[in-house]
C-alpha cells in the first residue's frame, strides 16, 4: 500500500511538473550559444541552425532594406510578414564571416515585425528565416555594399 502511495505521489509530482512546464512554456532560446555565432560559410550555418528542415521560399516575408548600403557598418532592416504564428525570426548575411546576425523570439502578443541595424561585409543576400511552429520559411534580398570613394 505504501509503495503504491509513493508511486502515486511520484506520478502526481511528475504530471504536475509537466503540466506546469506546458502552461509556462513558450518559445525560449535558452542560453546564448557561441557555436551558432561562429565563423563558418552560410551553407554550413543554415544546415546547423536548421538541421533537416526545409526552408520554404515565400513572398510573405517582406524585407525593407536599402538596395545599396551606404556603409556596410549600419544596414537598417525592417522585417514584416503576413504569415501567422511566427515564433522565431533569424537574420543572416550570406557573406559575413559569421553569417548569423541575430535571432528573435516573438510572443503572440507581438506583430510579425522586427527592425534592426546590422553589419554587412560585402555585397550579398540578406536571408531572413521565420519559424511558425514546425514550418520554416525563408526569403532573401540582395544588398550592394560598396567600397568608398572619397568618404575615406
Amino acid at each position, binding site marked *: 500500500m505504501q509503495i503504491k502511495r509513493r508511486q502515486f505521489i511520484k506520478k502526481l509530482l511528475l504530471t504536475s511538473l509537466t503540466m506546469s512546464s506546458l502552461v509556462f512554456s513558450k518559445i525560449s532560446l535558452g542560453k546564448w550559444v557561441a557555436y551558432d555565432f561562429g565563423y563558418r560559410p552560410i551553407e554550413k550555418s543554415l544546415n546547423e541552425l536548421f538541421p533537416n528542415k526545409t526552408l520554404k521560399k515565400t513572398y510573405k516575408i517582406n524585407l*525593407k532594406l*536599402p*538596395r*545599396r*548600403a*551606404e*556603409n556596410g*557598418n*549600419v*544596414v*537598417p532592416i*525592417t522585417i514584416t510578414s503576413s504569415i501567422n504564428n511566427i515564433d522565431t525570426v533569424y537574420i543572416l548575411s550570406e557573406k559575413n564571416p559569421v553569417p548569423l546576425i541575430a535571432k528573435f523570439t516573438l510572443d503572440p502578443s507581438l506583430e510579425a515585425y522586427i527592425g534592426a*541595424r546590422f553589419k554587412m561585409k560585402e555585397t550579398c543576400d540578406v536571408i531572413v528565416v521565420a519559424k511558425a511552429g514546425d514550418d520554416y520559411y525563408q526569403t532573401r534580398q540582395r544588398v550592394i555594399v*560598396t*567600397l*568608398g*570613394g*572619397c*568618404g*575615406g
Partner: protein
Amino acid sequence: MSFLIFILLTLSSSTVHSTPVDDSQLLRDFYQQQLPLIAFSDYADGVYAFDADSKAAWLDINQFPPYEFSLEKGKNLFKQPFANKSHYADCFPTNGIAIAQLYPYWDEEKQSIITLASAINDCRLKNRLPTLTYESDEITYLMAYMADTSRGQLINTHMPNSALPAYERGKAYFYQRRGQLNFSCASCHVDNAGKFIRSEILSPALGHTTHWPAYRLKTGKLGSLHTRFKVCNRLIRAKVHEAQSTELRELEFYLSYLSNGLPLNGPSIRK
C-alpha cells in the same frame, strides 16, 4: 571649369573682386543649371538630395539616431555649472539656445573669424577654465547640443567690409588646386557635384555647413566640419591644416556665406 568660374568671378566686378553677393548668385545659378532637379532647400541634405534609396535608409536611421547618447552628454556638459558657478549659457545670447546659425562670424575687434568651437573655448577662458582640444569628444558633444537646439534656424553669415579679405582668402582656398591629386575643393564639389567618385556621390558646396557635427556610420562617432576638411585634404594627399586654424576658419566662413538661407540640420548622420 572651376578655374573658369574663378576667372569670371574676378573679372565680373569692375574694380577689384566680385562681391560675395555676386559670388553666391553665380555659384547658385551654376548649380541650378547643372542640377535642375534639386530644389534650393534640398541642398541642406547634401548627398541625400540625389539618391532616393540612400535617402530612405538615412531617414530610417534618423528616426532614432545613434548620436542620441552623445547629444545627451552634450546637453549635460552644457548645463553643468563651472567652478565659479557660471554656465556656458551666460557667454552666449539667448542662453546659448538656437544660436549656432550666428557662427562663424567676423569679429571686428579681434580681426578674426569666430566659430562656434572657438566661442566655446573663449567662454571657458573667460571663466578661467582650460580650453578644450578642438577635435575632442567634449567639445564635439557641446557643439552637437548647441546645433540641435538650432535646428531649423537659417544660416545668416554677415559680411561686413572688414571681413572681405578673410572671405577672399577662404574663396581662394576653395578654388586652389592642392595635393598630389591636384584637386581643389571646387574640382569635386562644384565641377562634379552630383556625380559619382567611385561609388559615392559628390555633394555640392552649397549646403556644406548645415549638418554639423555629423555622426559617421563609418567611425560610429560624431565629427566636426573641420575634421572633415582634414580628412578630405588627407585623401587628396594635400597638406592637412589643423582644426580651427586660420585657413580652415576662412574656408568655413566662405562656405557658410554661400549657404546663407539654408536651414541648419545638425547633428546629422553621414556614411
